[in-house]
């Protein structure tokens, strides 16, 4: 495996009584696409929140490169996050701004580019997710899948070195799924960007993933290349990949 750009070390997360992650460790290799799979409610989104410093773990450490982000001050976290893109599961577009304004916001705030340059970059990014015609629309005028793509565009518009995608292809049609998967792969190729992708869509995972990690009952139970995980002899992994009702996973 390549050097990890980010790392969860023995992390635990609880919400009240509910234990979501328990002694969970995960390495995210630099320049690769790591997919996280797992049951609904297993804590996949929680892992992304930890990696972005949006949530502090109850135990353990989260490292970005060699920095322990659990000990960072909020102002340092804010600075750190300018280098990380986050495409949220439910898009989380700012509903008081147009799609164009949403996507240009990080460029306006963190770069000294001219309005014209920003417009060109934003248009280009929107085109790459098939949304160029919605530049002037408000988020409330978009469909669920379109919102998702706009959120995707906002996350990658600054070409961050690490991008966290929370179910980027859930709820979008097969053609757009293809488009998004290609964009993730292209970013990796052109900029050596690292990606962590949560997905339930096994087909697109097989298409793009370098590594796959499976989260089950609070910990990573399988981790490796796509081939390794597919050939894993862990019955839980096999049941999940085959989507079968019979097996060790309690329904």
């Amino acid at each position: 495996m390549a050097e990890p750009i980010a790392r969860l070390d023995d992390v635990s997360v609880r919400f009240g009584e509910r234990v979501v992650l328990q002694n969970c460790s995960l390495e995210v290799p630099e320049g690769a696409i790591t997919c996280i799979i797992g049951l609904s409610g297993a804590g996949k989104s929680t892992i992304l929140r930890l990696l972005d410093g949006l949530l502090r773990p109850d135990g353990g450490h989260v490292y970005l490169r060699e920095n322990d982000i659990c000990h960072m001050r909020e102002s340092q976290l804010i600075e750190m996050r300018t280098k990380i893109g986050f495409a949220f599961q439910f898009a989380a577009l700012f509903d008081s701004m147009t799609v164009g304004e949403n996507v240009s916001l990080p460029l306006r705030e963190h770069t000294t580019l001219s309005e014209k340059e920003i417009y060109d970059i934003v248009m280009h990014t929107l085109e790459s997710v098939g949304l160029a015609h919605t530049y002037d629309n408000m988020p409330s005028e978009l469909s669920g899948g379109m919102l998702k793509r706009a959120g995707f565009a906002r996350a990658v518009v600054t070409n961050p070195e690490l991008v966290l995608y929370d179910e980027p292809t859930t709820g979008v049609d097969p053609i757009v799924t293809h488009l998004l998967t290609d964009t993730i792969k292209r970013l990796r190729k052109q900029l050596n960007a690292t990606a962590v992708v949560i997905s339930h869509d096994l087909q697109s995972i097989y298409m793009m993933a370098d590594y796959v990690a499976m989260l089950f009952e609070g910990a990573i139970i399988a981790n490796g290349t796509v081939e390794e995980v597919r050939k894993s002899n862990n019955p839980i992994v096999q049941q999940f990949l085959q989507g079968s009702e019979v097996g060790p996973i309690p329904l």
Partner: protein
Amino acid sequence: MAQVLREVEESPTAQAVERVSVGVLASVGRKVSDILEYAGGLTLLMWETVKTIFRLRIRFAETLNQCYLLGYQSLIIVLLTSLFTGMVFSLESAVQAVQYGFGSFVGGIVSYTVVRELGPMLSAVVVAGRACAAIAAELGSMEVTEQIEALKSLGLAPVRFLVVPRLLALMIMLPLLTIFADVIGVYGGQWIAHAQAHIGTQDFMASARQTVGFEDVVKGLFKAIVFAIVIVMIGSYQGLTTKGGAAGVGKSATSAVVTCIILIFILNFIMSYFLYAGA
């Protein structure tokens, strides 16, 4: 003696009393710790806000926009409440005052009360109903739809992005609204004093000018600035700590307004006590 004591301790009544008092203690303890948590969180938020302002990390366009939304859009209701309060105050006092033969003081009484108390406080309460609820609801719905997290994920601090513009806007606009409230309250009072008790405009204004000094106006405006801080900080804190979907947003907005209005009344008393006690 010890025997008696033990019997008392073991009696069902004593046990029941103990259970109840433990329950009461626990719930008082929870209340106190809730209040401490609220105060702590609010203090932290204010500290963040002050730091951001002193680093001059201010978004001017958004601040102007908030001046319009929070300030200008409250103008009509502030004017109406102040006008009618000045009028009713004059109505109650003018006729009586004339009967007892000190009609020439009415201008002083009305304007004194309006400038020192009613103007700042009514404006604040009215703006609290609008602005505090609006802030709590807007930030609250951003919180429950992950927009606050999205803001953070883009490397933008919610305090700089959302709280500071609203705070500066209201710190400018609420004193301005208070001046309008003062003026229209006094004029409303004067009009009723004239119409109902035949007190001349000249007399009314002369008495007003004699009683109310420039420093009374300034102290009133100082109150307005404090109220502006209370309104925006309570609204923002409630908004940013919202939990539990749309229902949570509603709860946040309601409790923001209630907390805010209670605080305005308490702080108004405290400030009056210290600002005017000498006078």
